[in-house]
């Protein structure tokens, strides 16, 4: 249970840079589809991670708050990059 919480926290923590990593790996505009798919996967994983974090019962809420904030930030960044990738798909 504790391990799961730590993993969820770490995923949320790095989630804002995951879609940026996807852009670096699939760096061509023509690779908008892999970027879009990766963003969709990241979104699912981060949302699940946030739920896992919120479900844990801890006296010290630090990890939960920081993880949730970073997770939400990750969702926003991933969402924006996913939208741009999707938009690009309609243009190329």
């Amino acid at each position, binding site marked *: 249970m504790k391990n799961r919480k730590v993993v969820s926290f770490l995923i949320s923590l790095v989630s804002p840079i995951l879609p940026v990593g996807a*852009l670096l790996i699939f*760096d*061509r*505009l*023509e*690779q908008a589809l892999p970027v879009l798919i990766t963003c969709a996967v990241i979104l699912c994983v981060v949302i699940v991670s946030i739920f896992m974090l919120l479900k844990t019962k801890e006296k010290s809420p630090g990890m939960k708050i920081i993880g949730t904030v970073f997770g939400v930030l990750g969702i926003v960044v991933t969402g924006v990059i996913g939208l*741009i990738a999707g*938009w*690009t798909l309609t*243009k*190329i």
Partner: protein
Amino acid sequence: MIRARFLFILLAAVLFLAPTGGFGLDEAKVPTQDEITGWVDTICIPENRRPGEAGDLQAEDYIYQKFTEFGLVDVKKEAVDLTLWRAQSWSLAAGDEEIPSFYVLNSGFTPADGITGEMVYLGDGTEEAFKATDVKGKIVVIDLDFGILPVLPLILLASYYVYDPDSTFLWWDWQPATWVRENWDAQPEVEGVENTKNAYNMAIKNGAVGVVWILKEQPTNINSYYSPYEGIMTELPALYVGKYDGEKLKERLKNESITGKLILVGTKTPGVMHNIYGILPGKSKESFLITTHHDAPFKGYIEDGTGVGTLLSLAKYFSQIPEGEREKTLIFLASAGHFYGSKGMETWVNTHREDYVKDIVLNVNMEHIVAKEFVENDKGDYEYSGKMQTRGLFIFNNNQFKKAIQEALNDAKLTRTVVVAITALGDDPPGEGIYTNRAGIPIIHYISGPTYLLLDVDTRDKVNFDELVPAAKMFIEVIEKLAPLSRGDLTKKETEE
């Protein structure tokens, strides 16, 4: 029997259309690569083709001669007046050190022994910087800021079609738009409106005696930046210095007070340049105007030797098509004075409103054709990136345009081309298309923006000669596909996707 005849006609149609996928380009009539290269090389022999200068007058005569040779009718050479601004000598010294420099076109002249003054660095030359520093009697040193051209927003916000089969565009691709001076909007000031984006004018108003522009965003240390070219004469002497020379100067100015000496000696005399045009009559009086400009700051292989080469290719090709098979009348115009505020094009459109312009239903404008992309390498020199310069095809929203261009691009394989809305970069397209656009003429405007356009390194190595014929074929295909359409079909369509 009827069925057999139908099958025979169908078979004949398929055989006829098969080699070109439905488009009947006559390969034998297209000028060869060697022929077009020869025209481009001839145009680019002089060291420069500045408006009204000998090299440009020579180019005008050559184009006139070629139009006549191809059998165009009513070939004309129409004079356009200008002020010939010529720099004879220039130099910049900061204390005892001589700094390599280049003149600012159409700026003021100094006495033969120059002007001296304390040099003050004002960053980007903002209004605040001028308020904070007393520049009266001084030489101001300002960083010149260029606009930037990011590829992704252009594609997302304004493109209709992207042709990049080799997947070369990166998410973060961008380039400096070296023809856009962010802090030096040289358009004439509107009376009563302070132009705070014009650091040069603020230097004049605050009593500076000279300006040194640092080409901070120009790749390499080259200083031969031929600009601003709006054709507006100004009074304050000014020089450019290259990026790295400028950095050294700024470093010195941080630590010491330096007296500068700026010399810019030259002449201003009346001159003349010429629009060259000729006509190929067609079945209809409705006309297509096919244009480029013939002047250039230096040798101008890309600006716009290849444009002239393509114009001549089209003129030669269509001159071999019988008049009865040309759907539209074709007017070929090599305009003068792109580097004088596009005065040639403006004059032609204004002069010919009643005889030609009223019948023009499309302007195909071609600039900076087949340009290679050059970037700055680790040593600070220009180097071929291995890619073509990104090219823009600016068009009105019209599905017939889009379809014809998409098919032609696919046939010609002109990679890294983005077909965008005519308004993608502002109310007017960049380049010579401004005045036809303002006259309400539908336009297909092909242009690329390499960073070496305004420099003395716009030389032969910047041209991808292998693409000269495909580029010509692309324009031929577009023209032939659009020629049967009526004026109404060629206008902007608000409702089309």
